[in-house]
Each structure stands twice: as C-alpha cells, then as structure tokens.
C-alpha cells in the first residue's frame, strides 16, 4: 500500500489535452473514485498511473518513488500496481487458478507458497469452487472476482479499477460493490476507481475526484460534494437538485450569506462572501400551500415511497420530493431552506468578459 501523487500531470492526444495539469494526492490505503462524464480524462489518468501511457508533462509518484517524469519512465511491469479492467481481461487460455497464479509465477514465487496464496485469494473472493474452470465458463460477476483475485494475489502497492461494474447488471452491481468494500477493508490497499456512475462513486469511495475536460473540478468526501459543491458542474453532475443564479444582498455572516434567489431572500451556507450560484437539493425544498414562492408542477415521477416533482419557478426548474402525487400544471407553494451558495469560476470569467465589453 502506497500513496499516489500527481503533480502538474498533462497528457495530450494529437495535440488535444486529455489531462490538463492535474495535481492531486491520494493517501496510502485510501479509496478514491474518479467520477466524470465520458471523455473527461478519468481513464487517461488511470492508464498513466498504470504506466500504459507516457505523460507529456508532470510527475507521478507511487509511495514516494517517481514512476513518471521528464526523462524517467517506469514501465507498468515494474510499478507493482494492480489493475482491474472493464473487460476483466482474463486470459481465456488459462483456468481461474492459472490466471490468479500468473503474477506469482512472474515473480518466481516457489510453488508451495504460490499455491497457498492463490487458494487464499480465491477464498477471499469466493471462488474456491471455480479454480479449475475456464474464464468462458464463468458468469460476469465471477469473472470480475477472478480479475480482482488476480490483482490482489501479488499484494500490489495500489489497485486501479476501470469501470469494473459497467458490464454487469444492476442486481450484480450492488453485490459487487460489497465485494469491493470488503476487499478494501481486508487488504487496506490504496484504490483508484474510475466510474461515470455517481451512485457507485458516492457509495464506495472515501473521497471522490469529479473530473471534467481534463481537470479535477472538486476532490472531496462524497457528503461534501453533495452538500457543498465547488462549482456549477459538480453541483449539476453529483446528486439531484437545481443550480440557480443567486444575487447578493450584501448581508453575510461567518459561513452564511443572505442571497436573493428567484425573487426571495434566503440564508444560505457558503464558504465565500460573494457567491454567484446556489445549489438547491430536493431536501432543501419544503412544499406547502402558503409558501412564499409559487411553483407550477411540470413533471412528476414515482420513485417508490415518494414522488420526485419538477417545479417551474420564475423560469428555473427546481426538484422536490413529495409524499403525494401532484397533477401536472398544479400550483404549489415552495419554501427554500438551507441551500448552498458558491462562486462558479466560469461566472467570474463571464462577468469579466461582460465588463471588458462594457
């Protein structure tokens, strides 16, 4: 187990930046998810860490050793980093046991020790009865476990997972998430987990790095991402709810600002005295007949146990949860409590651009 550090890491494909000066540090034994839409650079970051790609600039450190820097490149086979591929990449000509034993054969581990460690890894992933099977005879979830066992058997310094659940059906995903959590708890390995599915990232990771266009937009614990998004992208990408422009009223206290949203003044949690937007999660909206804001119902979806309402207020769309069904077109009263206000960096440049033009 080792910490992973990226410093100013840049990777270009045909001139177009796929990763743009990434700097981040992942602690030893930490479980970190890289979350973002497709093309955001998360898989590139993973492949750079594994050593399958050469960075154009910047440094990668594994446990203090520099594995990639200008003029220095440690090939994947010398990095001691395990990876679980989206396609699992099990070798079809080897049995489950042979797949798992391969990393130890490469390391010339004596036969007796090798067999013991393979058996241990198969036990841990619940594959003891499948040791003699060929990969083609396994189900998707079992293949995933083999890939995991193959990775854990040589006790890598870090484990990379590339969308490992993307090829599994919903029911299996939940049980595999438990396997990953168990695996992390048992081995204490540093894990870097790439996914585009926020529920996976929020459920599994200690911290989540939300990526967009080759940059990390926010790197924080799941509950922080949800309650205190750093910018409009994170607020919109992670969790449900609405992002609405906010106007300052001039009143601010420690950790709180009074802002004007949709024509009403609301106290919002904030880390800045000059926010530009406000993130309104469904929990922040109370529905009543006499709320200050009048909202028209434009969508109603049953989620099981509650309804998700889409509400139109002053040209913006809010999301609220309701215990009862609402008719489309119905008007409801809305009260906003405890939203999160933040300053979007894009807004700054927007304002600057407007000012320049003026």
């Amino acid at each position, binding site marked *: 187990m080792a910490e992973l550090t990226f410093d100013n890491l840049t990777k270009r494909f045909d001139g177009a930046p796929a990763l743009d000066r990434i700097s981040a540090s992942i602690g030893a034994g930490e479980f970190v998810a890289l979350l973002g839409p497709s093309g955001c650079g998360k898989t590139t970051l993973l492949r750079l860490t594994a050593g399958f790609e050469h960075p154009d600039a910047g440094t990668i450190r594994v446990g203090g050793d520099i594995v990639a820097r200008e003029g220095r490149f440690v090939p*994947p086979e010398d990095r001691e980093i395990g990876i679980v591929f989206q396609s699992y990449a099990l070798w079809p000509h080897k049995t489950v046991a042979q797949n798992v034993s391969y990393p130890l054969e490469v390391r010339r581990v004596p036969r007796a020790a090798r067999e013991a460690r393979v058996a241990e890894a198969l036990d841990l992933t619940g594959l003891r009865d499948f040791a003699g099977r060929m990969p083609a005879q396994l189900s998707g979830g079992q293949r995933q476990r083999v*890939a995991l066992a193959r990775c854990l058997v040589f006790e890598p310094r870090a484990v990379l997972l590339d969308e490992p659940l993307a090829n599994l059906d919903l029911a299996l995903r939940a049980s595999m998430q438990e396997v990953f959590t168990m695996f992390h708890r048992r081995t204490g390995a540093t894990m870097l987990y790439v996914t585009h599915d926020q529920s996976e990232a929020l459920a599994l990771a200690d911290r989540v790095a939300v990526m967009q266009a080759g940059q990390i937009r926010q790197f924080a614990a799941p509950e922080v991402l949800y309650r205190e998004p750093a910018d409009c992208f994170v607020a919109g990408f992670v969790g449900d709810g609405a992002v609405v422009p906010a106007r300052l009223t001039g009143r601010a206290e420690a950790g709180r600002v009074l802002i004007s949203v949709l024509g009403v003044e609301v106290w919002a949690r904030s880390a800045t005295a000059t926010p530009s937007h406000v993130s309104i999660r469904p929990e922040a909206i109370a529905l009543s007949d006499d709320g200050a804001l009048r909202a028209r119902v434009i969508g109603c979806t049953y989620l099981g146990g509650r309804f998700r309402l889409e509400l139109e207020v002053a040209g913006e769309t809010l999301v609220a949860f309701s215990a009862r069904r609402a008719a489309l077109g119905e008007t409801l009263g809305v009260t906003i409590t405890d939203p999160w206000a933040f300053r979007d960096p894009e807004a700054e440049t927007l304002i600057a651009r407007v000012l320049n033009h003026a």
Partner: protein
Amino acid sequence: MSVSTFGNGNSRSLDRLLPLVLLPVAVMALGPVVRLLLEGIGFGEGFTTDHLRTVLGRDSTRTALIHSLLTAGGGTVLSVLIGASFAFLVALTDIRAKGALVFCLMVPMMIPPQITALAWMQMTGPSSVLLKLLGLAPPLGSPQPLHSAGGIVLLLGIQHAALVFLTLRAGLRMIPADLVEAARMSGAGAVRVWAQIVLPLSMPALIAGGAMAFVTALGNFGIPAMLGIPAGYSTLPTLIYQRLVGMGPAVLPEVAVLALLIGAVAIAGVLLGRVMLSRQGFGLVGLSGTPLTLSLGRARLPVEIALWAFIFAILALPLIALLATSLIPAYGVALSFDTATLKAWAEVLFVQPVTRRAYGNSLMLAVLAAAILMAVSLPLAWLMERRPSRLSRALDALIDLPYALPGVVLSIACILTFLKLPFTDLTLYGTIWIILMAYLARFFVVMLRPIQASLAQLDPAMEEAAASVGARLGRRLRTIVLPLAAPSAAAGAILVFLTAVNELTVSALLWSSGTETLGVVIYNLEDSGETVMASALAMSIVLLIVALMALVQISAKHFPKGVIPWQS
C-alpha cells in the same frame, strides 16, 4: 524496482530489439523484387535500355504476350461465370449443403495446376483410360483437344473460379438484407431483385474478384506448360521457362525483361480493377450480416442437382480419370479387374529415387517455410499491430507484392539476387536454399495475414493485464500472445504448407538435379512420357492436400473469422 530512462533502457531491451526484425524481413521479402527492377534498367553495367528494346521488339515476345492476355482474359471470363453463379446461388438462395458445395469448389484452387492439367488430359483424348473403359475414347491418332488455347482457357477458368467466388461471396455478405426486403416490399420479384438491386451492388466485388483471377491466370505456369508447350503455344511464363532451361543463366538479363513485362501486365490488371472499382463504389448503409435467403421454391432441387453435376464434372471426373490412369500397368493398356495394379503407386512412393527425393524436398521445403515464417510472423504481426511505425506500415503495404506478382517474376528476381550472394563468391543458385528463399518471400503474406487477423481481435487489455502484474515483454509474448494467436498461426502454417507443396511455378525455374520438388517431378514425368507414374504421384498429392484441407475444416471453430480462405 528496476527503472528505465528514455536514454538507456535495459529492462525494456526486447522492446528495443524487436523492431530490428523489420529490416531483415523487408530485405528477405522485397529485396528480390527490387533487384529485378534494377536489372531491367541495366544494373551493374550502367544504365541501358538495350535489353528492354531488343527483347520487347522480338516477335516471340509479342506472340507470347498476346497468348498470355488471350488465355488469361478468356480464363477470367470463365472464372467469373462459374464463380459468380456459385456465389449468387450459395450466398442468396436457400439451397442445401452449402458447406460441402463450397469445400468442393475450393479443391480445384488448392490442387496444383499441373495436376489439374494432367487429370483433365486423362479424361479427354484418344489414350484416356477412363474413356476406353467406358468405350467412349476417340480413335487413336486424333489430337488431344486440350492441347490448345481453348484447353488452357478452360482449365484456367476452372482453377481460379474459387477466387471470384470467395471475393463475391464476401461482397454479397456486406449487402444489407433490408435493401432487398425494401425492394420486395415495393413489389419486386426474386429475379428483379437480383438484377436490379443485388447485381449492381455486388459489381465492386465482382470486379475485384475478376482482377484477382486475371492476375493469377496470367502468372499460371503449370497449365500452359502442360497444355501449351506440346502444342507449341507459348505464354510469357512458359517462354521464360523455355529460354532459361534452354540457354542457362546467360539469358538472365533477357528473361528479366520478360519477367518485368509480365509483372507490368499484372500490375496493370490490378490497377484497371481499382479504377473500375472507384467508379462503382457505393456507400452501403444498414445492418449487414443477416443472410439473404431468396427462396428458390420448386426450382431448388433442379438447381442443386445442376450445381452438384457441375462439381462432379470439373472435380470428380478428372480425378477419377487420373486415378484410372494411375492404376494401369503401362500406358496404353486398358483398365480392367485383371489389369488394375498399384505398381505405379509403389514405384513413385517407395522405389523411384527421384520421386522419393521430390517428396522429401517438397515436404522439407514446405515444413521449413511454414516454421520459419511462423517464427518471424508472430513478432512481426505483433509489432505491426501494437507498435506501428512508418517502416512497419510500409512493409504491411508492400508485403503482398511477392505473392501477388506472378511466380515466374519472383523466381527470376530470386535467381538474380542469389546467383552471386552480395559481398561473397557464394551462390545459392542450384541449391535447395534458393527455392526456400523464394518460398519465404512468396508465402510471407499467407502466414502473416491470419496472425494479424487474430492479433487485431485480441483485446490489448490482455497484454496490459500481464504487464500490470509484472510480466515483461518477452514473457507476455510467450505466455499470453503466443497461445492466443496459436490457432491462427497453425492455420497459416497449414496454408503455407499446402501452397508450398502445390508449388510448381517458382521451383520450375529454380530446381536443379537433386533439388526437384513434387511439382517439377510431375511435370518432368509427364514430359518424358511416364504418364502412369505421373498420375500415381499426382493422385497421392491430391489425397494429401484434401486430407490437410479437411483437417483445417474440422478445426475451423478454433480459428478467428477470416483465417481460413474458403470460409468467411
């Protein structure tokens, strides 16, 4: 943890060494062709066009060129007729036993052309054992009808029909079924659909197949040699053969020009095909892969009978005639239960030193060629797929050349290159190694393409997974890539083996006493009147080839798509 820097790598030394494979391979495969080109412009004695002018000005050259164009052209027309009929019926209709039909259509392509010629000659003419047995033989003294331009055209057409069939069938499979369904919804019947939708859409494949059949027919040596030389009808390949055999290496500069001429005609044929293709190109949009099955209705049985009767006529009858001839004690004796004997078989397989030596030579050459090419092609295909460079891409584009060019062209090129090894006084001419070198150059692509196909289908993550758990390149190639590409490599090796055992064109020009190949010996036996022994030897080779093809066919499910030429 070992570390490499960009400056001096040690842990990735194999990664550095492997690209060095490219250069010798390029020299081995393309060197002779380049050497031949240089010869045409007077390499060694200063630039001159004298040879070009004298040789091209001769009447014999002009006659041979016209004969070549006529026979190859006529053969192509026949190939297109046969191949296209089979392709349309097999790919579009609901006839039964398609697999068996295709396999039987492929056999003539895999049988060496001189054996085809020999077999057909045993089926026609006054001394045909089979015709005598049936009492149908023409009177003694009447001419062998196949010793003519028509005979050459007929056999070339049959021999290369499979090329047109395969190309066209592949093209037909690309036609989206919904195009045909749309036409039928518009009210078009089966015939109209074929004529107005399928035929226009399959023109590109038909042209490509025709061009391939033309180039192959142009380079065919076995058929014009067996049928044309007795009749005094020479084509370019047989002219080159007769000159070189008659006059020895002294006429090399002259035959080099002839070789260049035939090479130029072949390339012109390919280019013409390309031009016609570019005018015919359609962008096909839609789901392909759904097989079109037009129902033949009540016509199905008659069509099936007609197809199988045709196969019987072009494949079974000649082979039966060949078998009949191989069973008589001496040429001229009629076959009956009393006269039938395996004497000729025993003679060629166990007694005659020449035929035994030829079997030994051919099998050794084929095995060596297959083994060497397999050993070189695996790392090469991996390099081309995983570490493409400008050199590897250029090699990829040019490696088809030695196989696509007529065999005589490559033979002359090899003689020129190896007559005097560069920087030494040694020569490979007259040894078996010159034949091996020519085989390596010629069959490279036969081996490389199947392996490339299987590596292209191999998920790169398979190798990355091995790298991430610590396996170095050598180990990854040995334990991951090699086992996964092995079935295709085996298929490629069998194909190389089959083609090399069949081979006459290259070895006819490169053999010398002691280095005869099977193809050469069959030709020589027939040439010296030992038809019965030639037939027995030919029949034994046919059995070997069909057995090998069947072996490939049986293990077909282990190979990736596109590896076996007669499947797709």
